[in-house]
């Protein structure tokens, strides 16, 4: 009896907390479907009535000032390139560090690990200067290349490669397969779970990045969704329906991806615990 009462108390608290967590999202979506004239109605409309797509039309229909579709493409292109590049660069390095013997191996590994201690704040200015020197300001490489070689990616993949029994590779070598082929056709496919985990973390980190993308882009057509939303805030500050439509469009891809592959995301956090 006592146990049941305890359970129902926990269940009701869990449900209440869940409602509190969902409410801001609901409010954003509901506002985005309200006519601009009723978004500020008092008392507020809990359900949008009538439901309208006007706000979405306003925001999508102004490709000069608010090129939302272009921002979406920029975000997608940057995040996909970043993810693929980061996996490639990290996996190659991790393979060398896990399987090949060479002078400097330990030194390189520990240099990467030690770099994790350095607070992120100091990278902002020197990396901006580097990007500026390379002529990358307001161009795609600025959004893609700088964070590509990470210590975490190298570390995660190296640990996983070490756990793969080397007999598999040995027998492939006896069959005459070269190093790179072994890496590409045996080691990488076997590492699918960790590659997916790291890939998803990288994708969301890049997709959601705000401060760096804010600094290295300035023209409207080069903004990413998170930064573009900020410029919407300047333009539609008192048009809450339009603002919320922009927020929904920015949030939607990340939320869908999150719900689809949550499992890998959880694993990634548990393995690294590091937030972008």
């Amino acid at each position: 009896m006592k146990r049941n009462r305890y359970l129902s108390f926990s269940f009701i608290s869990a449900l209440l907390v869940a409602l509190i967590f969902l409410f801001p999202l609901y409010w954003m979506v509901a506002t985005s479907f309200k006519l601009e004239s009723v978004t500020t109605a008092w008392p507020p409309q809990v359900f949008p009535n009538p439901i309208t797509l006007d706000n979405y039309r306003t925001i999508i229909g102004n490709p000069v000032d608010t090129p939302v579709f272009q921002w979406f493409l920029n975000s997608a292109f940057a995040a996909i390139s970043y993810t693929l590049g980061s996996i490639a660069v990290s996996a190659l390095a991790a393979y060398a560090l896990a399987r090949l013997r060479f002078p400097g191996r330990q030194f390189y590994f520990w240099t990467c690990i030690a770099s994790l201690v350095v607070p992120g704040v100091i990278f902002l200015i020197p990396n901006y200067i580097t990007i500026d020197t390379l002529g990358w300001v307001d161009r795609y490489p600025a959004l893609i290349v700088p964070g590509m070689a990470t210590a975490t990616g190298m570390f995660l993949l190296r640990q996983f490669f070490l756990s793969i029994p080397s007999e598999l590779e040995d027998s492939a070598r006896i069959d005459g397969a070269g190093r790179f082929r072994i890496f590409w056709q045996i080691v990488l496919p076997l590492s699918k779970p960790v590659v997916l985990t790291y890939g998803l973390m990288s994708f969301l980190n890049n997709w959601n990045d705000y401060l760096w993308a804010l600094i290295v882009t300035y023209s409207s057509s080069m903004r990413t969704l998170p930064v573009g939303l900020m410029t919407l805030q300047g333009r539609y500050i008192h048009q809450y329906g339009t603002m919320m439509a922009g927020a929904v469009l920015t949030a939607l891809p990340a939320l869908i991806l999150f719900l689809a592959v949550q499992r890998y995301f959880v694993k990634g956090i548990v393995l690294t615990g590091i937030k972008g």
Partner: protein
Amino acid sequence: MRAIARPRRSLFGDEGRLTPYLYLLPHAILFFMFVIYPIFKGFWVSLTEWNMFFNEGTFVGFANYARLFNPESIQNAYYWQALKATLLFVVISVPPLVLISLGLAVLVTSNLPWRSFFRTIYFMPTALTISVVAVMWRWIFQGDVGFANWVLRALGGDAIPWLTTQPYAWISILIATIWWTVGWNMILLVSGLNAIPHDQYEAATIDGANSWKSFRYITLPNLRPILLFIVITTVIASFNLFGQPQLMTGGGPSRSTVTVMYYIYGEAFGNFRMGSSAAMSYSTAVIMLVATFAQAKLFSAKDQDS
């Protein structure tokens, strides 16, 4: 085998002496350019008067650092004010971010119906970008027609200008931050809780321990390492507070929510004083490193006590 057959290893090819470095090269180049080099470059910039137009600096020694301690300078006033604001946020945000996540983690690892559904809901906001979070909460805390004030008025209270007066501006930022990031800590704690061997609890129940005692003497000690990790990373995350004040309060009212990151950003990309901004970055980095090691020390000292 092959090594015996051939007296000298070749440079390239499968067993070549340089082959491992080819695998390492892409990572090494990028890691050097954007992680190692900037550590030194940033320090150099902090010793200069940096000209953004020509992308070069004039050496000024420690003048940028000295300015932080010169009561006449504007950097002195603003930097320490920003540091105080940041520390205030660390103090008010870390306890709830750790305690609430612990509560939620215990909740979703108990044998609750729908527990994986609840876990997903609590965790979902971490997938959002800061600008969505800020836009959303800014609308809820809006002063005239925001939802928070509607609730207050419906309950018979007065509307509060949430984002433009203190302490409500901090409370708004705090609530948005908890909502956004508490799921992250929760997931780490869930993995910690799942790793605790079940027989420890069974043994305790046989010895007559109630659920509070099990929590206090089994759960907490087992979670200790992961709690240390969470406290340290949460302190760092709160120290880096930037997007919430920039997008929700604009640093106001009267600069009270301008954090160190926000000021460093503004000094570099608003006032174009890279040197001064870099000096603040380095000072802040030192403070953060000291704080991190102090926490680790504190935790391990407590370990030896018990």
